[in-house]
């Protein structure tokens, strides 16, 4: 390699422009790393603090009780010289065996024992239902807006309204849901009320992303199809929608994360602090399934973090729940991504 230092017409020069470029490059790099560090620290904290709750040192290495049991009150007491911690049921059974234990003073901590299984179930149900409603409504609206609607003052107003909807605070959605679905429609605190409230919250994202995906499909596909004598709907169904699906699913991934994690909308509309029965237990009619409330993970974390006195035991549950929450969202998102990639390969253009 030549190490000639003789300057020629293409030599590198340090000018103001190149210096500025270097500086800007470092700014962008730093910004990215800051984001990375913040994100990492959040995740790592949760993982670090939540891991003791999730994992055990002995087989099967996972604290299955946490995943499969409902929350219980924790009793901490001293018995025969040992400090013991027990959940409510275990404690009762213990007292049967050792009647003397009944007289020992035990401090109790609500929700600090047992698991979060009902909350997991509730969150998953809420996500699935609300995303279904959001996708159906949102994609239909997007198709109408991008393919059928003629530009005019009204349509511009509609688009503006959708954009504004994206900026509405989630607590306002909660109040809206409470007012309309819970009270006015008379659905009470129920799954279905939560579904619709969450769906409306995530609708703007779905509509905008779907519209963008539909617009990204080249005009040539539509023209070519119409020129062969297809109706507008035939063209959209066969030649536009399949190719816009990957983009639509991407928006759904974003939507899932939001829907799963919002507390405010479900506080008044779907979530119970504690519920003994799982949604499919003790149903008198099949439709009762929709009109019952559920527990939800974000709400549970909120309850455990602020509604009850804080101590080392509640902390365990908080971080454990947060960890599980992250896992669930990651799982659903991964499933979405896999589905999207499959569709992308099938409908490549």
């Amino acid at each position, binding site marked *: 390699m030549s190490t000639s230092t003789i300057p020629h017409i293409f030599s590198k020069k340090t000018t103001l422009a190149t210096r500025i470029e270097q500086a800007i490059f470092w700014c962008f790099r730093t910004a990215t790393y800051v984001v990375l560090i913040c994100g990492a620290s959040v995740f790592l904290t949760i993982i670090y603090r939540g891991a003791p709750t999730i994992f055990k040192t002995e087989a099967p290495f996972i604290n299955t009780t946490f995943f499969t049991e409902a929350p219980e009150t924790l009793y901490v007491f001293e018995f025969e010289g040992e400090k013991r911690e027990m959940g409510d049921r275990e404690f009762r059974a213990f007292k049967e065996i050792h009647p003397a234990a009944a007289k020992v003073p035990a401090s109790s901590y609500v929700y600090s024992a047992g698991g979060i299984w009902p909350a997991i179930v509730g969150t998953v149900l809420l996500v699935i239902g609300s995303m279904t409603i959001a996708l159906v409504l949102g994609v239909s609206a997007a198709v109408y807006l991008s393919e059928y609607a*003629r*530009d005019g003052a009204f349509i511009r107003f509609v688009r503006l309204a959708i954009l504004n909807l994206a900026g509405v605070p989630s607590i306002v959605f909660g109040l809206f849901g409470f007012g309309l679905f819970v009270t006015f429609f008379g659905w009470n605190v129920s799954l279905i009320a939560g579904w619709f409230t969450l769906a409306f919250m995530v609708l703007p994202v779905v509509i905008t992303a779907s519209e963008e995906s539909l617009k990204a499909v*080249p005009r*040539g*596909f539509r*023209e*070519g*199809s*119409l*020129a*062969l*004598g*297809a*109706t507008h709907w*035939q063209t959209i169904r*066969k*030649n536009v929608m399949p*190719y816009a699906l990957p983009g639509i699913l991407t928006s759904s991934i974003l939507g899932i994360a939001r829907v799963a994690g919002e507390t405010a909308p479900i506080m008044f509309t779907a979530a119970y602090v504690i519920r003994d029965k799982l949604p499919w237990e003790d149903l008198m009619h099949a439709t009762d399934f929709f009109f019952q409330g559920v527990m939800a993970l974000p709400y549970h974390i909120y309850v455990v973090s602020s509604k009850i006195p804080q101590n080392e035991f509640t902390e365990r549950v908080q971080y454990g729940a947060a960890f599980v929450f992250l896992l669930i969202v990651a799982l659903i998102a991964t499933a979405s991504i896999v589905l999207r990639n499959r569709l992308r390969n099938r*409908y*490549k*253009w």
Partner: protein
Amino acid sequence: MVTTEIPMATRSTVNSPPSTDPRPQPREVAEPAGATLIDIDHLDFFYGENQALFDVNLKIEEKKVTALIGPSGCGKSTLLRCLNRMNDLIEGTQIKQGTIKIRGVDIYGADVDAIELRKRVGMVFQKSNPFPKSIYENITYGLRLQGVKSKSRLDEVVEKSLRGAALWNEVKDRLHASGLGLSGGQQQRLCIARAIAVEPDVILMDEPCSALDPISTSKVEELIHELKEQFTIIIVTHNMQQAARCSDKTAFFYMGKLIEFADTQTIFMNPGHAQTEAYVSGRFG
């Protein structure tokens, strides 16, 4: 007096012996006048407030190739898109005066279904737009829309259309490969095959070769020459040599008006209008 025709261009085969009569045979008599398929009568077309076509009167003959030439923005593509009502897709377009009749039916009449019209008047676009499906699915798209399901019929149509588009030998082994994997010229021929699969009466071609290299262009031109025995073809082109090579009749447009419409030979050898002469000899602008 029987005129023996000196075999030329469209009518000869290589093996037929040239005539021994040295007298030049009049070409105009040799090609019989065709029936009028499309009758454009006093057409005024507007994009919103802007008038794009002014009092256009044109009769397109059946089973002939008609070329529409003229400088950019003269309205030839607009007229083409009027013929299969693709202009309906653009907002604000309207015909304020005049009619377009195909086989005697006013295609902008209230009882006319544009979908049915487009099944009989096909279109090939400037930028080839094969669907991102397999070659087979591309060609059967139009038929499937009409409800044809029988596999044997679809197979038959695929082969016939691909042969008709001079593409069969190149793709017969990969009918289920993606249409996007073909070269530019092949893609355009695929679009032509797709258009002829529904057996239209008319094929509209909007600058079909403008994005193609010379060899693909001449293959497409050869194709047009063969197709005109079955279909009426109307081609918009910027390339004057192409119009001279391919077409039987040529219409010259300028600024939305039809300046001259005659046999291609007349337009290029002895145009009637000075503007036509200036345009074909490249002295425009």
